[in-house]
C-alpha cells in the first residue's frame, strides 16, 4: 500500500505533499465516523411517517425527539471536546460507540414516546457529541502544516458521505421496516466503528510517526504525559481570556442559524411558490452538491490567505445571497439561488479549525472546538424552528428569509471584530513546543523528523 502511494507521489510529481502518510488514514477514519454517526440523524425525516403509522404519535411529538437530540448534542459538545483532550479521541469515540449501540437498539424497541425521547433524544444525542466533536481536533493533531488541506478533504467526505448513506437508509426503512432498520444500522454501524477505531491513533506519537508537514528543524510537540495535562489545563485558562474564544462561539451560532433556516425552509418555500416536491428537493440537493467545492476550498484558502477574509466573504455571501429568495417564483430562480448561495454557504463553517490553529497554535483544540460546536448546535436547532414558526404566524416565509440574512450578516460583522490572525493570541507559550532534549523522558529528537510531508 505504501509503495503504491509512493508511486502515486512520483507519478504526479508531488513534492510538498505525499499520500504515503498515516494522516490520510486518520482523515478517512474521520469521514467514516461522521458517516456512521450522522447518518441516522440525517435520515430522521424518513422515520417520521413509519412511527406515525405504527404508534399514532403526532409528527410534532416525534419531531420533538429530533429537537431534543440536537440540543443534547450541542450541550454535550464542550464536555466531549474536553474528554477528547483529557483521555484521547479514541477512548472518547469508543464511549460514543457504546452509547450509539445502546441508543440504536433501544430506539428499535421503542413502544412509548418517552422511550424515543430518552433513547434517541438523550442517549443518541450524547453519542453524537462523543463521536463527532473529538475527531476534528484529532485530525488537526496529525497536521503540523497543511491543516487546511486535511480539513478540506475531511469536510468533503462529511458532506458526501451522509448524502449517500441517507439514500441507503431510505431503502432500508422501506424494505425491512423502521424497527429492523434501526437494529441493522445499530449493529452494522457499531461493528464498523469498532473496526476503524482499531486503526485510529490519537496523535502521531501514538503511531510512532511524525505529524504531516513536519520539517527537520521543527521542535517536537508535547502531546501526552503529566506536563501535557497540566500545561493544557493552564493554557485553556488563557484561551478563555481571549475575545476570539467567545466571539467564535458567537460566530458559529450566527452562521448556523443563518443557513439552518434555509436548509430546513427551502423545500416548503419552494412548494409554496409552486414547485413540485421533487423539484423543490432538487434545490436542496443542488445546494449540497455545489457546496462541496467551497467546503474543500475554504480551509485550503484560509491557510494560504487570511481565514478572517475567507470567513467574512462566506458569511457575507450567505447573508446577501438569501435575498434572491425574496423574488424567486420559478424553478429557474430557485436553482440559480441554489448555485449562487451554496458557494458561500459551503465555506461558512469549514475554516474554523484553521482559524483556531492560527490563534492558539498547536495546542490541542478539543475543548475550544467543543464550545464552538455548542454554539453551532444551538444555532442549527434555532434555525430549524424559525421557518415553521414564521409560516404559522405570517402565512409566508419572508420574515424567515430576512432573519436568515440578519443572522449571517451579524456573523460577518462579528468576524470583522476578530483579532488579526497573523500572530498567535497566546504567544511564546514555552511548554507546548519543546526543544529536543529538554523534556525528561523524551526519546525523540528533531533529527528523526522528516522533511515536510514525510512519514
Amino acid at each position: 500500500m505504501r509503495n503504491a502511494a509512493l508511486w502515486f507521489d512520483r507519478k504526479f510529481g508531488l513534492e510538498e505533499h505525499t499520500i504515503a502518510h498515516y494522516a490520510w488514514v486518520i482523515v478517512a477514519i474521520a469521514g467514516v465516523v461522521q458517516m456512521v454517526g450522522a447518518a441516522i440523524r440525517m435520515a430522521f425525516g424518513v422515520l417520521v411517517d413509519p412511527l406515525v403509522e405504527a404508534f399514532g404519535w403526532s409528527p410534532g411529538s416525534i419531531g420533538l425527539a429530533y429537537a431534543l437530540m440536537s440540543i443534547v448534542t450541542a450541550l454535550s459538545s464542550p464536555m466531549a471536546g474536553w474528554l477528547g483532550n483529557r483521555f484521547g479521541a479514541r477512548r472518547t469515540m469508543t464511549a460514543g460507540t457504546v452509547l450509539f449501540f445502546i441508543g440504536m437498539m433501544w430506539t428499535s424497541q421503542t413502544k412509548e414516546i418517552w422511550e424515543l425521547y430518552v433513547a434517541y433524544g438523550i442517549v443518541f444525542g450524547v453519542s453524537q457529541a462523543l463521536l463527532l466533536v473529538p475527531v476534528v481536533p484529532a485530525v488537526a493533531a496529525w497536521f503540523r502544516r497543511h491543516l487546511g488541506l486535511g480539513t478540506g478533504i475531511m469536510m468533503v467526505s462529511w458532506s458526501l458521505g451522509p448524502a449517500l448513506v441517507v439514500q441507503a437508509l431510505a431503502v432500508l426503512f422501506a424494505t425491512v421496516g423502521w424497527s429492523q432498520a434501526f437494529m441493522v444500522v445499530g449493529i452494522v454501524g457499531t461493528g464498523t466503528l469498532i473496526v476503524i477505531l482499531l486503526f485510529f491513533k490519537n496523535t502521531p506519537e501514538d503511531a510512532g510517526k511524525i505529524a504531516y508537514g513536519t520539517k527537520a528543524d521543527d521542535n517536537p510537540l508535547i502531546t501526552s504525559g503529566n506536563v501535557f495535562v497540566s500545561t493544557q489545563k493552564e493554557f485553556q485558562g488563557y484561551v478563555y481570556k481571549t475575545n476570539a474564544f467567545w466571539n467564535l462561539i458567537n460566530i458559529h451560532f450566527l452562521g448556523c442559524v443563518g443557513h439552518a433556516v434555509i436548509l430546513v425552509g427551502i423545500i416548503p418555500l419552494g412548494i409554496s411558490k409552486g414547485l413540485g416536491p421533487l423539484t423543490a428537493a432538487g434545490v436542496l440537493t443542488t445546494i449540497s452538491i455545489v457546496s462541496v467545492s467551497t467546503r474543500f476550498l475554504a480551509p485550503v484558502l484560509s491557510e494560504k490567505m487570511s481565514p478572517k477574509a475567507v470567513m467574512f466573504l462566506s458569511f457575507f455571501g450567505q447573508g446577501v445571497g438569501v435575498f434572491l429568495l425574496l423574488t424567486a417564483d420559478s424553478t429557474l430562480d430557485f436553482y440559480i439561488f441554489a448555485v449562487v448561495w451554496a458557494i458561500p454557504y459551503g465555506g461558512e463553517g469549514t475554516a474554523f479549525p484553521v482559524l483556531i490553529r492560527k490563534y492558539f497554535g498547536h495546542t490541542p483544540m478539543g475543548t475550544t472546538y467543543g464550545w464552538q460546536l455548542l454554539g453551532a448546535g444551538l444555532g442549527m436547532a434555532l434555525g430549524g424552528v424559525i421557518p415553521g414558526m414564521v409560516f404559522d404566524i405570517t402565512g409566508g416565509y419572508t420574515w424567515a428569509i430576512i432573519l436568515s440574512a440578519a443572522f449571517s450578516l451579524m456573523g460577518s460583522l462579528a468576524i470583522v471584530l476578530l483579532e488579526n490572525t497573523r500572530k498567535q493570541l497566546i504567544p511564546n507559550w514555552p511548554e507546548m513546543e519543546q526543544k529536543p532534549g529538554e523534556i525528561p523522558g523524551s526519546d525523540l529528537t528533531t533529527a528523526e523528523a522528516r522533511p515536510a510531508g514525510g512519514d
Partner: protein
Amino acid sequence: MKADAPIQPLDGNSPELDGFEIKRRPMLGFGLLMSSVIGTLAVLIYFGAWASSDRIENRAQAAGISETQVEGEWWEDGLVFACPLH
C-alpha cells in the same frame, strides 16, 4: 511527544507571555456573544408574542367574545407580557 516530568507549579509561576495580558477580560468577545443571546431572545419573544396574540384573537373570534375575556395558555400570556410591542 510524551513528557512525564513532575507537574510544574502553576500558580504564581506563569510564564512570560509577550503581548498577552493575563489579567485582561474578554469584554468584546463575551459582549458580542451576549448581544447575540439577547438579540435572539428578543426575536423569539417578539415572534412568540405575535403567535400568541393571533391564537388568542382567533379563539376570541370563534367564541364571539372580546380578547380580554379569553383565558390564554400560561406561555401565551407570558410571551405577550414579555414583549413590549404586543
